[in-house]
């Protein structure tokens, strides 16, 4: 029963320094190898910020990978090397600690986190700082859709359009800077720093573009900002990342069966010219020169995607086939009979201004409310509403 | 002290446990009051001025008198623990009632509508939360006074007389918590 016959060092001292060095190198290179997987996991880099953040992540993944290999390696080594052999009933070595070792494994992690903190601070300072010549866009989150507002002032008129050509009331709006163009999509162009100023109509949301690596909560009662600079043309999904209610998951950009982009997407054009000719100018022209015929104008508004109706409703005339909300084909005849004493036109008006007022049986109250006042989220001017209703009343059964 | 020596080991530990227990519980429970102070400070940080423009500030004179009464009740409570419990604690309870009535009057009259919504409601929550403690603990003290008047503590059994110290410490807690609130509500 003499325990001292078993020298405390006998189990561990058999490790030669060469093996320790080899294991150390294996751990470091293993960590670097793990770190090299970072680009495969993250979405493709599409913003200036994503390059810096991904480099930071890769660095952290390499260090984390090394620590992971060190701990698991030690664990597996101990489990194999120091398992009790059958019949061996003795106790382990009575070692209670080692001050030097404990000091080392306090200091090294402290150094590592210091380095990580300094690196993170430098990345953070450069990614969230204000950039020169930012494109400023207003964003409004509402359950469960996004609206992006672009200022249309005298300097941003489409080419070939002068103030003199405009109707007096529209001209006054442009000159006062009071005309905004709305879209469910966020458009910008390559290498253009964007600053999005965000408000919410109801609960908190979070604006996230995974491809840009940026995210910011929208806080009820506050205005928050987010900045990024896209570096690759393309389309990028915008996601709501803060629980906002039953339709939270639907608040991300999606693709319908025909391959059309529906709802919240960031579209990065090749150049400013492309941005203007493909997105901004047609939208601006439609706002500056509204068609006379309300039915034609209503069709134009809905087809433009300014309002996110296509993600939920079916309209064969426009190729919509959303599944969340009621089918709108032949809606006019049904709307006329839904509520006693209310015309189809009145019924549709209330259904858009206050979607919760009348629910079609079998459908939930998921539709955002479209408001009449400029500055409110999901702003839908009365002109637009009249035109949309006029168009909807013409829809026939397919 | 002699009385404590007559206790068994288990009884001594039980007595010690109660004393430690009250201290530990007080350390924990004061955090709710600290929390409400922080809530008050964060709410006011959203307003350019406090009280918000157009809202009348709370009167400070009566609450200051109430606070002094409450502090004085602490002094008499402590005197009661050392000497004439029945008389001193009756005075303390009387002062406590004066405090509670003054604060109740202000609680009722504070403006909680319109512009004063935040200013008034956070005041009401804090004062009401404190008042619940003052009333419950005052009630415990009153029970002690009744028993003391009957002579229940005459034998000096520490397991019985402990409640005197316990009730006193709870009352000190009420005072300390109020001083915290007084500073946040009326001074800062």
């Amino acid at each position, binding site marked *: *029963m003499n*325990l001292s016959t078993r020298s405390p060092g006998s189990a*561990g001292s058999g490790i030669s320094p060469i093996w320790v060095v080899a294991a150390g190198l294996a751990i470091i290179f293993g960590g670097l190898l793990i770190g090299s997987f970072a680009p495969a*996991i993250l979405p493709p880099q599409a913003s200036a910020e994503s390059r810096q953040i991904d480099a*930071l992540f890769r660095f*952290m*993944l390499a260090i*984390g990978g090394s620590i*992971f290999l060190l701990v*698991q390696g*030690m*664990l597996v080594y101990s489990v194999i090397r120091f398992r*009790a052999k059958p019949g061996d009933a*003795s*106790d*382990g*070595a*009575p*070692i*209670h*600690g080692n001050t030097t070792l404990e000091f080392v494994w306090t200091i090294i*992690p*402290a150094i590592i986190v210091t380095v990580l*903190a300094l690196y*993170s*601070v430098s990345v*953070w300072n450069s990614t*969230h700082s204000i950039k020169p010549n930012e494109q400023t866009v207003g964003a409004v989150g509402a359950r469960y859709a996004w609206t992006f507002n672009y200022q249309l002032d005298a300097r941003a008129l489409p080419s070939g359009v002068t103030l003199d050509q405009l109707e007096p009331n529209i001209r006054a709006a442009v000159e006062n800077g009071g005309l905004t163009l709305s879209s469910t999509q966020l458009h910008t162009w390559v290498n253009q720093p964007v600053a999005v100023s965000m408000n919410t109509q*109801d609960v*908190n949301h979070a604006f996230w573009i*995974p491809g840009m*690596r*940026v*995210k910011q*909560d929208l806080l*009820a009662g*506050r205005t928050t900002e987010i900045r990024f600079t896209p570096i690759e043309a393309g389309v990028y999904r915008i*996601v709501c*990342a*803060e*629980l906002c*209610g039953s339709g939270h*998951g*639907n608040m991300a950009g*999606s693709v319908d069966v025909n391959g059309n982009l529906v709802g919240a997407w960031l579209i990065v054009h090749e150049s400013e010219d492309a941005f203007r000719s493909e997105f901004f100018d047609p939208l601006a022209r439609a706002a500056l020169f509204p068609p006379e015929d309300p039915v034609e104008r209503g069709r134009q508004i809905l087809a433009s995607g300014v309002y996110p109706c296509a993600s939920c409703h079916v309209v064969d005339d426009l190729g919509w086939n959303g599944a969340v909300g009621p089918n709108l084909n032949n809606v006019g005849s049904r709307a006329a009979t839904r509520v006693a004493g209310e015309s189809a036109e009145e019924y549709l008006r209330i259904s858009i201004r206050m979607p919760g007022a009348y629910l079609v049986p079998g459908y*939930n109250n998921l539709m955002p409310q479209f408001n009449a006042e400029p500055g409110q989220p999901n702003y839908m001017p009365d002109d637009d509403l009249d035109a949309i209703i006029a168009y909807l009343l013409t829809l026939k059964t397919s | 002290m002699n009385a404590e020596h007559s206790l068994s080991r288990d009884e001594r530990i039980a007595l*010690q446990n109660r004393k*430690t*227990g009250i201290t*530990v*519980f007080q*350390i924990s*429970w004061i955090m*709710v009051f600290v929390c409400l102070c922080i*809530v008050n400070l*964060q*709410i006011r940080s959203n307003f350019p001025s406090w009280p918000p423009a157009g809202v009348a500030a709370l009167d400070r004179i009566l609450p200051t008198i109430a606070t002094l009464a409450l502090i004085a009740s602490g002094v008499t409570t402590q005197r009661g623990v050392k000497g004439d419990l029945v008389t001193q604690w009756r005075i303390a309870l009387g002062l406590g009632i004066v405090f509670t009535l003054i604060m109740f009057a202000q609680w009722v009259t504070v403006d909680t509508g319109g512009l004063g*919504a935040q200013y008034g*409601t956070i005041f009401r*929550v804090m004062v009401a939360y404190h008042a619940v403690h003052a009333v419950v603990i005052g009630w415990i003290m009153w029970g002690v006074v009744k028993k003391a008047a009957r002579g229940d503590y005459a034998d000096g059994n520490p397991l019985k007389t402990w409640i005197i110290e316990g009730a006193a410490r709870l009352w000190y807690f009420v005072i300390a918590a109020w001083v915290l609130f007084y500073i946040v509500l009326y001074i800062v």
Partner: protein
Amino acid sequence: MATISVPLIGGRAVEGKRFGISDILRWTVDHKVIGIQYMLTASFFFIVGGALAMLIRWELLTPTLDIMADGQQYNQLFSIHGTVMIFLWIVPMMAGFGNYLLPLMLGAKDMAFPWLNAFAFWLIPPAGILMLMGWFVGQAEAGWTSYPPLSTLYSLDGQTLWAMSLHLLGLSSILGAVNFIVTIKNMRPVGMGYFQMPLFVWAILATSIIILMATPFLAGALTLLILDRVVGTQFFNPAQGGDVLLWQNVFWFYSHPAVYIMVLPAFGILSEVLSVHARKPIFGYRAIALSSLAIALVGFTVWAHHMFTSLTPELRIPFMITSMIIAVPTGIKVFSWLGTLFMGKIRFTSAMLFGLGFLSMFVIGGISGVMLASVPYNIHVHDTYFVVSHLHFVLYGGSVFGIYAGLYHWFPKISGRMLDERLGRLHFIVTYISFFFTFFPQHILGMSGMPRRVAVYAPEYQSLNVVVSIASFILGISTFILIWNVIVSLRAGKRASANPWRALTLEWATSSPPPVTNFIGDPVPYRNPYGYGSESANAYLNALESAYGPSEHPSPDAPKAIKPAPAAGD
């Protein structure tokens, strides 16, 4: 070393009253019964929360809504899953271990306040019922974090019940913590200073300090929430000058430390299990004990890292720094545990397997935790499946694996029966592998763009979600191996001796299960709870064996060598 002094061991008390099944359903003030009541109640809610998790994973098999009528139903599921698992499973389960073991480890007859102890427990069943009743009035749907205004202006009445339920659970938790601290301070046996306490007791001490200082903030936040919902105050309504960040600040001031409330006791369990089953003193006792306190203290300064996407940008960096500092004491613990294994004589009991599993999985949660502390990276993965993965590695790979290790370790003491080791090993292997495949792929999902708390997601994430769901179903089933093991072992398991694992802490120095008074007389603990490998420890353990019957771990000495223990040195 001619004479070996063996401390006085609690007298043999096999006779005397024992508790039966019926006591578990009644009000009783015995800490052992209360401990079992805690554990059984918590386990019931573990199954409830697990069933909710299975429904969540079923729904997520496809990118569209399948079994849920709408997103609201899904939101209710994960809200209650999270709340139940945290407040009705892990926290009360740890309180159960603490209640059962603390007086035994301290050689005491009971907790400092037995009546209060029972009261604290009996707050839990009504609170649990209150929470589940939410489904009759429109269950809470704002997540376990319940951010206003979603939880105030846009939620149904279940949200009020949810808040009231948490109020009760918070009170229970505070009363329990007061009891633990007073017991530890006043009721240690003669000869046991703070630095001779078992590390589990240290962990409970650190946990109780956190509960004491942090839970009142939960009470404050919930009070305001209930007032907003019921009385009509406007603290969280921006339209009336209220502030939605107010809730986030106060809630996280409690809820980040709450993570340590859940994981520190598991650290304590791990320290006991590793040392006993590796037959080796714990490496760096003081470092482990004090790092628990360090984690508890620094843990109060990091709450806003949960708000990196909502907090004012200027304040994000300070909270990043404090959050990263936490990694240092945690690292000390991990390396100390590895040092404990090194040069040990490791016995692969089920308890040890779960202990090793804890160590290897918790490390992943720790590494992803440091990554999450880094603001720029956090911004990308905030509120995504990366966070879901991280928190489950900490709370399942850490806390739940710790609970499992503790169950296999102390079940013989609690029940007087050994658990079946073969079923235990099967349970470990199935749990370990399915756990990894349930939660590891979620890192990748989050980084590549899948937010958390969604019932519908982009189709490109489906394949990984199917892997996760299938693994989670296996993980769910693996729990029943343990339940089956418990049932079978309770009926026909091998009888446990007083000290089956040859452990030095005091709870093993009385019969299994312990008598009503725990010990006869006042026991004197062995001077070092982790003194394995020394002659005197061996003599002490042999003396225990000769008094109570043989252990599962064999004695290093030939059976003939066991002599009756000499009386205590004085």
